[in-house]
Each structure stands twice: as C-alpha cells, then as structure tokens.
C-alpha cells in the first residue's frame, strides 16, 4: 500500500512535469508542421512568458488570471513579430541555418531577460501555491493538478480552434500544402506568423503553469531540450502525440530519479530520445504519410 501510494504520487508529479514538456513540445510541433522550421528558442520564449507574468502580477499588482492573460497576449504578439521580422527571411536556406538562427535567438532572449529582470530566480503568488488536495489517502499538490488541468483545457481549446474555426482550418490547409492554400486565397505568410503567435502563447501558458512548481529564472529555457524528447516520441507531427510523449517523459524521469542512482534523472529524457530515434525514428504517433526522417 505504501509503495502503491508512493508510486502514484510519483506518477502524478511526473505527469505534471510532463505536461510542461508536452506544452513546449506542442509549440515545436505547431511550428514544424506548418513551416518545417524547428524553434530551438521555444524554451526561452516560455521563460519570457513567465517573466512577463511575474512583472504583471508581482510588480503591477494585477490579479493572477488577468496577469496571465496579459503575459499570454504579450508573448503571442512577440511570437508573431519574431516570425514576421526575422524568421521569414531565412525561408529557403538550409534547415540547419534555421536551427542555428533560433539557437542564437535563444541566447539573445536569455541575455535580454537577464538585463531586464536580473539573474535571480523569482516567483509570484498563484491561487495554487502551497495548497494540497486529499484524494483517498493521496496528498496531491494543487500546483501539480493545476498544470494537468490547464494542459487538458488548453488542448481542448486548441482542438476546437483547429477543427471548427475558419482560421484554424486555414492553418491546417497551409501546413498541408502551401501552394494549394495560396490558390485558395489564404494569406499563407500571415497564417504562418499567426502559428508562431499561437506557439509562443502556448509557451507562455507553460511558463505560467510552471511558476508555482519551480521558480522563474533565466536558464529555464533549457527545459526545451527535454521537450525535444516529447516531440520525438510524438513523431514531431502529431499534436496529441507530443503531449502524450511529454507525460511519458515526465513520468519516466520521476521514476528514474527515485529508483535509479543519482545522475540518471538528468539524462533520462536524452536516453529516451536517443532510444526512440534508434528504434522507431518516426515516433509513436506519426501520420502515415511518406515522411521518413
């Protein structure tokens, strides 16, 4: 019983951490599906979102929910501008140029955040900080539950957006076939920038949800590397796959931290990633297209 409870606790904590990975991976996947670029600065955009929320809530004294919305909107606008100003220029250059470009942008964001908000870890009060729920002998933190609930909610909203709205369908169309989308009168370039905005917004949500669990600091963006494992498990093209992959990575990481000697926890996600690439490089949820990696 003791063991089972402990195991369940680890699984819930892992799932919560995994949801964050999943949300970052979701950002990768949205952008990759549409533009075949990979945004190595996704984790740093999450950090920026977290810091904006911190400014709004802790400095300007607005409500948690309003502050969160401000942060999401600001980060989304930032994502739009990033694509419209910088990334649109490198279309057609080899893919590793984009990789290096976004890596470089990540360094710049990190320094900019350090200059603006300082290099210390910060945090702000949320409705979920230091509260727990008892569920039949299990003690679960509100913060972890809020992450899981927030992720589920966000996925639902995104699903409805892509399936039901005109803009969402236009986005699907332009990521499936750019030329055909142009012929149908879809402003593909703007749509791509909108996708960057959504992806940045999702990253901001991840940053805000993460804040009660871990402090916000400049090096938060390195979580993005773990999120690659999630995206690869999901097949780098599947939105539900990336979230499921994230949860898987999170749980495996928690279990490895508990059952394996020290040092394994940090590399678990990397080992999972490499193992996945060796065994089944197309991921678990890849669409059955002709795509091979």
């Amino acid at each position, binding site marked *: 019983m003791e063991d089972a409870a402990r195991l369940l606790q680890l699984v819930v904590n892992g799932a919560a951490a995994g949801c964050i990975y999943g949300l970052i991976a979701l950002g990768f996947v949205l952008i*990759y599906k549409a533009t*075949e670029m*990979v945004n190595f600065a996704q984790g740093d955009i999450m950090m920026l979102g977290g810091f904006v929320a911190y400014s709004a809530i802790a400095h300007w004294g607005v409500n948690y929910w309003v502050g969160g919305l401000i942060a999401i909107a600001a980060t989304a606008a930032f994502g739009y501008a990033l694509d419209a100003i*910088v990334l649109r*220029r*490198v*279309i*057609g*250059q*080899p*893919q*590793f*140029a984009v*990789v*290096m*470009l976004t*890596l*470089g*942008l*990540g*360094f*710049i964001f*990190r*320094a*900019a955040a*350090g*200059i603006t908000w300082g*290099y210390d870890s910060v945090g702000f009060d949320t409705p979920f900080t230091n509260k727990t729920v008892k569920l039949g002998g299990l003690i679960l933190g509100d913060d972890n539950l809020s992450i899981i609930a927030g992720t589920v909610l966000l996925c639902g909203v995104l699903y409805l957006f892509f399936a039901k709205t005109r803009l969402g369908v236009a986005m699907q169309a332009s990521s499936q076939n*750019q030329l055909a989308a142009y012929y149908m009168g879809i402003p593909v370039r703007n749509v791509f920038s909108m996708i960057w905005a959504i992806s940045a917004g999702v990253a901001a949500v991840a940053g805000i949800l993460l804040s009660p669990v871990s402090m916000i600091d*400049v090096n938060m963006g390195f979580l993005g*590397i773990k999120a*690659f*494992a999630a995206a*690869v498990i999901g097949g*780098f093209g599947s939105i539900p796959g990336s979230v499921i992959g994230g949860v898987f990575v999170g749980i495996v990481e928690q279990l490895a931290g508990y059952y394996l000697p*020290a*040092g394994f926890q*940090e*590399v678990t*996600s*990397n*080992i999972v*990633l*490499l193992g996945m*690439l*060796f065994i089944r*490089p197309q991921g678990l949820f890849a669409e059955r*297209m*002709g*795509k*091979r*990696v």
Partner: protein
Amino acid sequence: MRYLFRTNYKQDIRAWRHSGDVFWYGLLIATIMIIPFVLGEFYVGEMGGVFIFAIAGVGLMLLVGYTGLISLGHAAFLGIGAYVNSVLLSHGIPFVITLPVAGIFTAICGAAIGRPTLRMSGLYLAIATLSFGSIVGTVFQKWTAVTGGFDGFAVPTPYVFGVSVEGATGVYYTSFAVLLFVLWMSINLLRSPIGRAMVAIRDSEVSAQSMGIHLAKYKTLVFAVSAGITGLAGALFAHYVRFLAPDAFDVLLSVQFVTIVFVGGLGSLRGAILGAIFVRLLPQAIAIVRDDLPFGIGRLPGLEPSLFGLILVLVILFQPGGINGLWLKTKLWFQAFPFKRQTSGRRQKSYARSERLR
C-alpha cells in the same frame, strides 16, 4: 591579376590553384613559425588556443560545410579526446601514441553514434547530437573513477621524443603541426572521390544516391573523420587548459564550434580557420574594451554568449557566406574594379525545400 588557363584536366583537382598560393601560404607558415620568438607568452598561448579551435573547426567544416549534416554535440567529442589522451598519459603511455589513439578512439565513437543517427535528416540529427552531447557531459561528471568528476583532472606533461611539450610555446608548435596535418588531410580528402561524394550529398541526397553514392556509408565515414579530428583537437585542448573540468564540454561549447563554421563561411577550409580566429579573439576583445563601454554594458554577466548569439543571427540573416564570403566579395571587387555591378554579390532566389515527402 592572374588568368588561369586550363590546359589539363588534372588542374581542376590540384591542391594548389597556382604557384602564387604556394608562395603566400608558405610565407604564412614561415611567419607563424617565428612568431613565438617575437611575441610575448600571452599572445603565443592565445594563438595556440586559436589553432586548437581551428582544428575542431576544420573537423566540423567537413561535416557541416561540405556534407550538409549538422552536429550540436561536437563538444562531447572534444571532451572524449581530451579525457582519453590525459588518462592514457597518466598511465605512462607516451604522447606520440596517445594523441593518435585519442583521435582514433573518438572517430570510433563518432562512427558508433553516427551510424544510427545519420538515417535522420538535418533536424533530427541536430536533436540527436544535442542529446548525445548532454549524455556524454553527464558521464564526465558522474564517472568519477576515471574523470575525477568535479575535482578535475590534472593533465600530465607530455614528452615528444624526450623533449617535454610544456608551456605556451610547446602547445603552440604541437597544435600548429597537427593543424597542418589535418588541413593537408582534409584538402586531399576533398579532392578525392570521397570529397566529391560529400559535396554531392550536401547538394542533393536524392541525386547523390541515384549516382550510386552509398549514403549511409559516406555519412558515417564523414561523421567519424569529423569526430576524430575533433578528438585530436581535444587531446591538444587538454594540454592547453592543463586541468580538465567536466563542465567545460557543454552545449555552449558545441554552439561555439558551429559558430566557427557559420561565421567563417560554410564550405571553405579557410573559413574554418578565420572563424576560429574570430571566435577565440572575440572574448579577448570584449575583455579589452569591457571597462570603456558606456552604461556598464561591459559588466553584464551574459554579455559573451549573447554576443555570440547576436553575431550568429546577423551572419545567417545578412552574410550567409561568412567571413570567407566577405573576403571573396572584396577580392572580386578589386579584381573587377571598376566594373562591380549591383547584382554581382546577390544571392539566387531560394525557395523552401520540403523534407516532408521523400
């Protein structure tokens, strides 16, 4: 200006274009040989560092610039070379053996990691090498029995035929010799059929394959050669720093290596060396002007990585040819003077190439 008349097919694959090349590069080598007698120890040490980074840059250039594969894990190969060399030296094996062994062992590691990952395209390769790099970094930290962990590892002084290689001058001459060897090898590799195959793979994998090039074989070979060269650089790097700390070989170092390749100019060995000079001297330049900058910019903690990031972004956006491209453009301007046209340096319009359906 010199006009090259092609009178012979062999002329196209010669290592030297004409006798002027031999003269100028010979002069450069002679100058480098006498520099330690002229300049102070600090400058000699710094130049030794530049040579080591140039070796690694040449290794990565073969991979990124000529074969079109990216690696974000080359710091791990540098680390493997450094630790193999130092551990073997501390067991009393002479330096003339440990140096090539470090290179060969790293090349085998490169082939082992390259074989499965090279089935993937650019993006997956970047991610896979990134995570390989961080796994190796963690191994360096945790495998304390061999690497000493965070206590560090003091590198023993090497002896070459009874003469101890120590101090800045020793590292300077050794790295320069290795750099010359690596350059000679790379030039010959590039004008051999293997080099042609590499360039063909870079330009189009499909057409390379249809010309009968075995993709997996050549990619693995290039990855191994690139890793091996980086391992040689690592062995020298160990003597350059003299004290190995496991956290020196992190992602930031890998990014610096790729910066060398991009800033220097993709697809030219000269670019790798120019890039190495740039990347090594930038921190020194920052250190010199640090106190004179206004508004305390110089004392910001994250200045150096962010400058690297900024330069990388600017180069990719505005000068994809890197320093080498800039040099070629300048040369063209003088050669064609006064007939430079507005369109001379303009890039061809490029379109997105889909990797989705292959």
